[in-house]
């Protein structure tokens, strides 16, 4: 809501300076998003009078204006058409400045040297877009004076207040003035209305029939005949500019101004285009076609409320008027409409046509259901004041029986203190007095009261006040939030703190960070195309996605089912920005549809932990020897599982299509699949232009979490010494170490503590299709010191067992 300081002052005579006003209002919840001096960016603009006007010889669309600045005369070229000899205009001289033009210079235009420029409202920063002509000022202004020194005009300050959507009453001059009156204690000065009615009765000119009373609970109107449509006087145009509204003509300007003044949208129809002299407020017929003022043809549905005459719609109720009945320069007789349209339906219509006007925005937020007659009378009085039109006798005011005043509210004073957490007076009677004072300022009616209790009816323009807490907010606002003390909880509450799941998630995150990985966060919405470049076949389960009905971007239309594409895209981004050593992980949710039959069944959300590494370039003296391969990645996983005390992990060959064949695996624990890992398929690396090998894992938190043991079980330190024995065997290439280890451990689980591989060798000495594996077996008993003889015996058994099972031979 744009408004100016001087304009507000006409409605309430407060003492605040412009800065103080802004500060006070912001502490009451009305924040000015932008505050500026009306001519803050204007320099060197003076009041001039056009004394000569001729068209430029070389270009007849331009004029040469001789402008009298009292002590000098300037000749300027002007392209506008709306000025005439005798008009007072703002003129910027050479060396002056305007918003967007730092220094105005005289210049040659079509062979004529222009010594300045006559300004339009938009050039002065008072109108958005291009103005239709120069700004014509009032005739009694002092010639040659700097525009900034013109009293009420030059010293004004324009605010742009942000108004909460529950306070449509503040979207008006009177509403804001009322609020200022509330906090300054100065009385509100609403405009005085004087109506001079003619003999002719309104009912002889127009009849109104409200068919859809549910959507139009109130409809008021006035008729003015014999008026003249012309430019508004300066004072009205100026006020509209201060309110951020473009002046059009006197009738439209008055309806707009009264809307800004009272908050009540008005619409003016050309009476002579209302067929049958009758207005019918009805639901549209399905498929009915109507051209709104903006020149768009609208096909209506029955939800749309229209203002119609006997033949056709003439306005889309509360949204926009029609071309067929709009005010034109020739208009003589007008019907002024001032209605209350039901907010929800109005909002639906706005949304249906994706159009929002200042009027519709007010209707959908809810205007004062009792403000129609006042507003239409105000407009009528201004029209008769400014034009020669005659106001017909009588006002139309049709309203539904359903339209009632606000419901009474019971307010208990102790509750005021309970909610605010502080007393607003020294004693009960002072508290009551203060509350009474605030209620009076709010224009609440006190229906009943005793020592600690009020029954209140809020004013009709405050639709937001429905419960006692709404009144308490008002009291707190006037009391000042800044005056409420800050206290900490009076009682303690035992809560769970962090859940086990949250603690484990924290641990996983910390471990991966400890492994040198950087955490990333990607969008949950992804591009379905990613499944193609991930090489997923058409029926793959990861393609079962939750889809957005109304995506914003083409590349974000579905919810992700894996974090891998996002991770790869991030690796790509970083490669493109010259990163050479990339270790990233994300912990975030993936989403799968479930139970689509049920309308209200939510998708399945799973927390995934996904990491990836790639090394491009050489690195420093130490890093250059680091080989970031599949086992480097597995090392990170081992560290992670170790920190989670998850010991029994199996890795088996996997077949995810985005991995290199045979260079990937499935991670299992206690027969649950907890994740996958592997080397990214070369085709994907090529597609993303990632030059190095990429290694990736993805873990499923929901599978992993239940396997974790909560407690640490302490093992007493061994009392007896270890014996180490190394062994090297030649064994077929296709027997994995995990298998060998498992078999060895089985031989004497009581004394074989571990089997650790330390070398793997293939070469000339080993026959093709075999490999040599060297490992250390650690022996230890819990009840005695083992002897070499005993261990040698076991080693023999190991040799035999490996030979029978795998045809493995000792390597000599």
């Amino acid at each position, binding site marked *: 809501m744009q408004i100016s300081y001087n304009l507000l002052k006409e409605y309430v005579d407060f003492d605040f300076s412009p800065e103080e006003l802004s500060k006070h209002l912001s502490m009451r*919840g009305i924040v000015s998003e932008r505050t500026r001096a009306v001519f803050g960016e204007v320099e060197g603009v003076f009041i001039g009078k056009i004394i000569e006007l001729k068209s430029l010889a070389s270009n007849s669309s331009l004029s040469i204006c001789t402008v009298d600045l009292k002590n000098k005369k300037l000749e300027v070229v002007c392209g506008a058409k709306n000025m005439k000899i005798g008009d007072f205009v703002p003129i910027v001289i050479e060396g002056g400045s305007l918003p967007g033009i730092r220094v105005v210079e005289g210049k040659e235009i079509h062979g004529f040297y222009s010594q300045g420029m006559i300004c339009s409202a938009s050039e002065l920063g008072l109108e958005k877009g291009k103005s239709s002509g120069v700004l014509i000022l009032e005739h009694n202004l002092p010639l040659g004076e700097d525009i900034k020194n013109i009293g009420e005009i030059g010293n004004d300050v324009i605010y742009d207040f942000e108004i909460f959507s529950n306070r449509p009453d503040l979207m008006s001059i009177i509403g804001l003035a009322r609020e200022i009156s509330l906090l300054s204690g100065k009385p509100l000065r609403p405009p005085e209305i004087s109506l001079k009615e003619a003999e002719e009765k309104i009912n002889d000119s127009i009849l109104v029939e409200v068919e859809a009373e549910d959507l139009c609970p109130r409809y008021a109107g006035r008729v003015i005949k014999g008026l003249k449509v012309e430019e508004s006087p300066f004072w009205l145009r100026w006020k509209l500019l201060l309110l951020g509204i473009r002046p059009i003509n006197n009738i439209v300007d008055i309806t707009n101004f009264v809307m800004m003044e009272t908050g009540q949208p008005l619409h003016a129809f050309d009476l002579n285009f209302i067929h049958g002299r009758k207005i019918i407020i009805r639901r549209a017929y399905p498929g009915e076609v109507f051209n709104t003022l903006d020149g768009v043809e609208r096909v209506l549905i029955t939800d749309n409320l229209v203002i119609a005459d006997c033949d056709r719609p003439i306005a889309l109720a509360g949204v926009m008027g029609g071309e067929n009945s709009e005010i034109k320069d020739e208009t003589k007789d007008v019907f002024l409409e001032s209605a209350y349209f039901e907010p929800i339906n109005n909002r639906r219509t706005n949304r249906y046509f994706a159009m929002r006007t200042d009027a519709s925005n007010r209707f959908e937020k809810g205007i004062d259901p009792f403000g129609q007659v006042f507003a239409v009378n105000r407009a009528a009085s201004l029209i008769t004041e400014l034009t020669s039109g005659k106001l017909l006798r009588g006002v139309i005011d049709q309203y539904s029986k359903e339209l009632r005043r606000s419901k009474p509210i019971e307010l208990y004073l102790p509750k005021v203190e309970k*909610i605010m*957490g*502080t007393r607003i007076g020294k004693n009960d009677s002072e508290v009551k007095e203060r509350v009474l004072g605030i209620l009076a300022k709010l224009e609440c009616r006190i229906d009943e009261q005793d020592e600690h209790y009020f029954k209140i009816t809020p004013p009709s323009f405050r639709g937001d006040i429905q419960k006692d*807490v709404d009144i308490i907010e008002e009291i*707190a606002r006037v009391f000042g939030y800044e005056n409420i003390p800050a206290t900490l909880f009076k009682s303690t509450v035992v809560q769970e703190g962090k859940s086990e799941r949250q603690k484990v998630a924290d641990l996983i995150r910390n471990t991966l*960070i400890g492994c040198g990985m*950087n955490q990333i966060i990607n969008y949950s919405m992804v591009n379905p195309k990613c499944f193609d470049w991930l090489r997923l076949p058409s029926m793959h389960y990861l393609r079962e996605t939750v889809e957005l009905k109304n995506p914003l971007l083409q590349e974000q239309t579905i919810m992700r089912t894996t974090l891998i594409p996002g991770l790869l895209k991030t690796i790509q981004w970083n490669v493109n920005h010259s990163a050479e050593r990339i270790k990233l992980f994300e912990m975030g949710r993936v989403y799968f549809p479930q139970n689509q039959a049920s309308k209200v069944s939510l998708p399945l959300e799973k927390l995934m932990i996904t990491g990836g590494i790639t090394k491009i370039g050489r690195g420093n003296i130490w890093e250059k020897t680091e080989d970031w391969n599949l086992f480097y990645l597995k090392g990170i996983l081992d560290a992670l599982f170790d920190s989670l005390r998850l010991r029994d992990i199996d890795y088996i060959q996997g077949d995810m299509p985005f991995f290199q064949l045979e260079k990937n695996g499935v991670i299992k624990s206690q027969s649950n699949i907890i994740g996958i890992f592997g080397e990214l398929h070369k085709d994907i690396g090529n597609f993303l232009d990632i030059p190095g090998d990429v290694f990736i894992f993805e873990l499923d938190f929901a599978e992993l979490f239940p396997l974790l043991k909560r407690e640490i079980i302490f093992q007493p330190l061994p009392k007896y010494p270890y014996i180490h024995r190394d062994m090297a065997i030649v064994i077929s290439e296709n027997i994995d170490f995990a298998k060998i280890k498992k078999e060895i451990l089985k031989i004497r689980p009581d004394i074989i503590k571990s089997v650790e591989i330390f070398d793997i060798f293939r070469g000339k000495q080993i026959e093709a299709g075999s490999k040599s594996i060297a490992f250390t077996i650690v022996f230890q008993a819990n009840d005695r010191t083992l002897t070499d003889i005993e261990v040698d015996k076991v080693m023999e058994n190991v040799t035999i067992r490996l030979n029978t099972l795998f045809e493995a031979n000792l390597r000599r």
Partner: protein
Amino acid sequence: MEKEIKNLREQFKKRLASLETRPELQKIENEYIGRKGLIAQMLKRMSLLSAAEKPKVGQLLNKLKTDLQDALAEKKKELAKGISGEQGYIDITLPGQNFSRGTMHPVELILKETKNIFLGMGFSIVDGPEIELDYYNFEALNIPKDHPARDVQDSFYITPDILLRTQTSPMQVRTMENQSPPVRIVSAGKCFRRDSIDNTHTPMFHQIEGLAVDVDLSLSDLKGVITEFCKQIFGKDRIIRFRPGYFPFVEPGAEVDVSCGLCQGKGCSSCGYSGWLEIMGAGMVHPHVLEMVGYDTEKYTGFAFGMGAERIAMLKYDINDIRLFFENDIRFLTQFK
């Protein structure tokens, strides 16, 4: 040609003896025994020799090649020693081996700090679905269909009844449905709004939401808790300001500002010349919300607050573009150690 071979050998020896770095070594290697190297060139020229000469020169060239290879290998080993010199000298200015710790995402960092502060004040952390029922996201929060407040939270819908949550507030309702007072919870996580991307908007962001319900909670408790939080997260020298605000699920409602750290409240471009930065919305839980979960509104009151993690991070670290959080550039991420 025999003479030529001899010269080449001498020349190679000299050059090898004088070189000190691996790139130089690499260069010589290519020059002599590379695919188009000097030896290869000589081998080509052998076809010009007589049948009698060929075997002998061939043998010499092969010998030369293996000798050169051996010498190069030897030199390579020598150069590799480099790190510790002959007399055991160690250059202690060499970098340490790389164990650098990774980094937590700055948004996660803010979530973590925030959670810790509220844990310290007796709040519990709860998690909820990111894809929500319209009921929890809006209706149970006093935002029925066709409520104007839905405009500022333009939503991504999955079905007419299911959407990506636009705020973490649904967890207030879910928690209260399952727990009777007292309640003290904080919920944090991803939220989604159909906002076009610019330097202060992304369609996804993170919110932190708190709720406390008990028999004796008031605006002054809300002020106390929020003031404490702000002091801990922004530092003790920042001033906190409460002013009226509007959110449909609280009444009275409040907006909380913190004094601008760049200009100490004097006003600068980053605070829009107001001296204040908006950081959160808060208020006393609206009785409608409490009624919907079956709480006795005569007995219990509560307060709630919510803030954007990205916004807090932007203010705390002076980051001017929200998009940086989701670009995940390593040069950005590694600053948040």
